[in-house]
């Protein structure tokens, strides 16, 4: 349970009684679904806004200019349009199971279900289920959650097999298939069971009229989607793939058997607008990408002010509850040794140290502090937010790694050990415990842990290496 805190407790399980026009799957059966898709009279297409795999990106991190996405821009876009018939979020709202992920999940649900434009359907992703089940269930109580292939005996289980909405006389039924469970929920005694996908789909379509538009939010990779979707009967009209290999949504739907397949993209950077209808030739969809770009000059890039307030409260809560410190030192150090700090490396590696000290890596912590002090850039405690800190220090979350600037100032900044690993063993026996790159991976792979497509969009390793170039010291040169 999240400890008591102002406002957070006050809006606990916020979506519980939200008014909705969605009906629950409680036996309001229509005529049995026919084997073949029934035709619909020509009518307005149903306008959907689709997203998935937010992966905890409540806001763009701000490392690079022009970053897309964020819940504040998303909800502002929805508020401005006012014309979507269905707002669908596929699931995987967070990317882990830490204290930070719990708070992020809570904040996401607060924004997506409890504000002016509540989402019509939330799917469930395996990553969501990695969170403590009590918290996950409590936050979603009363929200419009679907998961046809998940079953539980828990009284507070929030997911239903399907949800329906009447859109101008057209019934639309939406369901979700999670397809896998996190390790903690696997096994006979687990409180959640995973049903076979075909049976789950049948369960979700039970009692649906032949004229009902059928939408499936589908987790798993693309190959799974391609294998599974053609076997589903009755065929879904639209399948939304929530696959993390698809960084952006697909700009066109693809026909797969009698269904249309689109992918939702990740991190909520670009949303997918779909106009869906069923014709004599089967379902048809027109897709449009909605990149959530921000302003270059407005503080925070713009966005819905109420959502921004909720996000700010989240940031402040993370600071107040010392989540950064609580998350520290939970994981083993990469090579079993202890971090010693860059200054220690200097004695034997003066040339590398000089190169490093002139690089921006050496000032990485200072960069955060400057950004935090600039109200036009942030206005919130960046130096206490784990997602930000993780790329500006050495070894946060790892044994002997960074805890906070007050506790471990020697590990602030991107020092030697960020790439080469903890150095205590090397210090004791340099020849016997040589340090390479962490995990033995190529430098380019290591760099993109932080310099990814979103945080460093112009990152090209071959160019950026020149800015931090360093090599062996004279005493390290191999003998001629």
């Amino acid at each position, binding site marked *: 349970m999240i400890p008591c805190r102002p406002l957070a407790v006050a809006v606990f399980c916020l979506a519980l009684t939200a008014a909705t026009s969605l009906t629950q799957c409680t036996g309001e059966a229509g005529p049995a679904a026919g084997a073949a898709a029934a035709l619909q009279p020509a009518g307005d297409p149903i306008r959907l806004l689709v997203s998935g795999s937010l992966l905890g990106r409540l806001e763009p991190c701000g490392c690079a200019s022009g970053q897309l996405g964020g819940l504040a821009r998303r909800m502002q876009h929805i508020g401005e349009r006012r014309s979507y018939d269905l707002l669908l979020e596929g699931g995987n709202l967070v990317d882990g199971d830490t204290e930070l992920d719990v708070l992020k999940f809570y904040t996401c649900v607060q924004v997506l279900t409890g504000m002016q434009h509540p989402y019509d359907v939330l799917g469930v992703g395996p990553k969501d289920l990695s969170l403590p089940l009590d918290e996950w269930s409590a936050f979603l109580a009363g929200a419009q959650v679907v998961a046809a292939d998940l079953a539980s005996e828990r009284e507070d289980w929030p997911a239903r097999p399907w949800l329906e909405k009447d859109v101008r006389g057209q019934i639309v039924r939406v369901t979700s298939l999670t397809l896998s469970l996190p390790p903690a929920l696997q096994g006979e005694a687990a409180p959640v069971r995973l049903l076979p996908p075909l049976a789950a789909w049948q369960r979700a379509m039970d009692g649906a009229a032949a004229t009902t538009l059928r939408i499936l939010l589908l987790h798993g990779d693309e190959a799974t989607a391609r294998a599974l979707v053609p076997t589903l009967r009755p065929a879904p009209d639209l399948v939304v793939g929530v696959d993390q290999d698809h960084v952006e949504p*697909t700009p066109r739907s693809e026909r797969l058997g009698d269904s249309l397949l689109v992918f939702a993209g990740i991190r909520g950077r670009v949303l997918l607008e779909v106009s869906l209808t069923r014709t004599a030739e089967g379902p048809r969809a027109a897709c449009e990408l909605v990149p959530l770009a921000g302003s270059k000059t407005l503080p925070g890039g713009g966005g819905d002010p109420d959502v921004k307030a909720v996000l700010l409260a989240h940031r402040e809560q993370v600071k107040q509850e010392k989540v950064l410190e609580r998350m520290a030192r939970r994981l083993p150090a990469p090579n079993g040794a202890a971090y010693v700090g860059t200054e220690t490396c200097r004695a034997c590696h003066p040339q590398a140290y000089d190169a490093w000290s002139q690089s921006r890596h050496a000032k990485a912590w200072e960069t955060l502090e400057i950004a935090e002090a600039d109200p036009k850039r942030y206005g919130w405690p960046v130096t206490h937010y784990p997602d930000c800190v993780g790329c500006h220090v050495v070894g946060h979350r790892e044994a002997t790694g960074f805890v906070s600037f007050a506790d471990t100032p020697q590990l602030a900044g991107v020092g030697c050990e960020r790439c080469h690993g903890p150095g205590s063993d090397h210090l004791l026996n340099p020849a016997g415990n040589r340090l390479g790159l962490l995990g033995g991976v190529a430098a380019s792979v290591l760099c993109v842990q932080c310099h990814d497509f979103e945080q460093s969009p*112009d990152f090209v390793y071959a160019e950026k290496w020149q800015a931090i170039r360093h090599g062996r010291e004279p005493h390290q040169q191999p003998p001629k």
Partner: protein
Amino acid sequence: MRATPWIAALLPFVACGETPPRPPAARPLAPPPSLAHDFGVIPHGSSRQHDFLLDLAALEGEWVALHVHLDCSCGRAQLLLRAADGQERPVDGRPSADNRPRPGEQLVARIVIDTAEREAVDLPATTSRGQVVLQSLADASGRHRQHLPLLLHFGVDAPVVLQPFAALDLDRVPTCRTGEAWTTLRGDEGHPQVRFVAVETSDPALDAVLEPADGHTLLRVRCRPTTVGNHRALVGVRTDLPDDYTVRLPVTWKVVPELEALPMAKLSFRADLGREQTQAEAHAQFLVLTDHDATRTAEFVLRQLVDDAGEDARAAFAVDFAPVPGQPRQCRLHVRYLGGHPDGFRGRMVIARPDTETPQLAIDLVAFPSRKP
């Protein structure tokens, strides 16, 4: 499959799906020059186009291009097949042989950088990325797609300088007030004599005026609140620059009711509902109420507290209002459970001002029983 040299060079960038990981190159190569293009510095308001000619014949097997992703929000991409006579047909995104170039056709990735919708601010030379998504015709699963990286170099030059904002956000505008924001316009060093000759808005709820000032022009925008919710409009400021260059500023605002509960009109908490809560237990169960009407003092009373069935439930809760220091228009609404609903409570409160029935503010109230350990 034997990869051709250039696709092999690209693999470190493009691994996707369940393709087995390949050993990364010691130093990945930059994308081939043919897949990078410098659009130069684009005058704001105009667009530039470049056609990348893609030769997939160099790849072993039969590949089709499905679509193009661009990182840049002002970029548009289209895949086309161009015949020798210049006729073009679009690629429809299916992994189908129909989307292979026919004899004499060339595959073209047409990239347009359109700055018209961008804020009118200079953008120093920058690099944006894109990807052409390819799929082998032999791969019905789509599991082995390849992504050809594109590098787009460009900058943007706006002839005017907008300070401090190139977009305006009126933030939250209560229904009982008008919203206002301003920014300044002047020509940049290349256009010091530019004049701003007229202004118009795309929303009748929005008024915009230009006021001459020392060395610049002040643009003042006011909005009259209409429907509660988010709004967006464009303000266009015409200049005397060639081609009738018009500065377009997006304006956003959110109309909110005059009585508000923050962060939202809902208060939920979990407690032992078998007994009365202590003051300490209930200290965090509050919302912040705001009365935006500055013509009156911010005072609130509870008009109604009912359960979902409409039955009066005032006896089950103590509801108090406390001022917020330094915020004369706000107060805190505290709720403490007194008893009578051991299995949980769902209902709502109606808050109003003491002297009038309207406006009213409805707040959902939910109490969950504590879980048994």
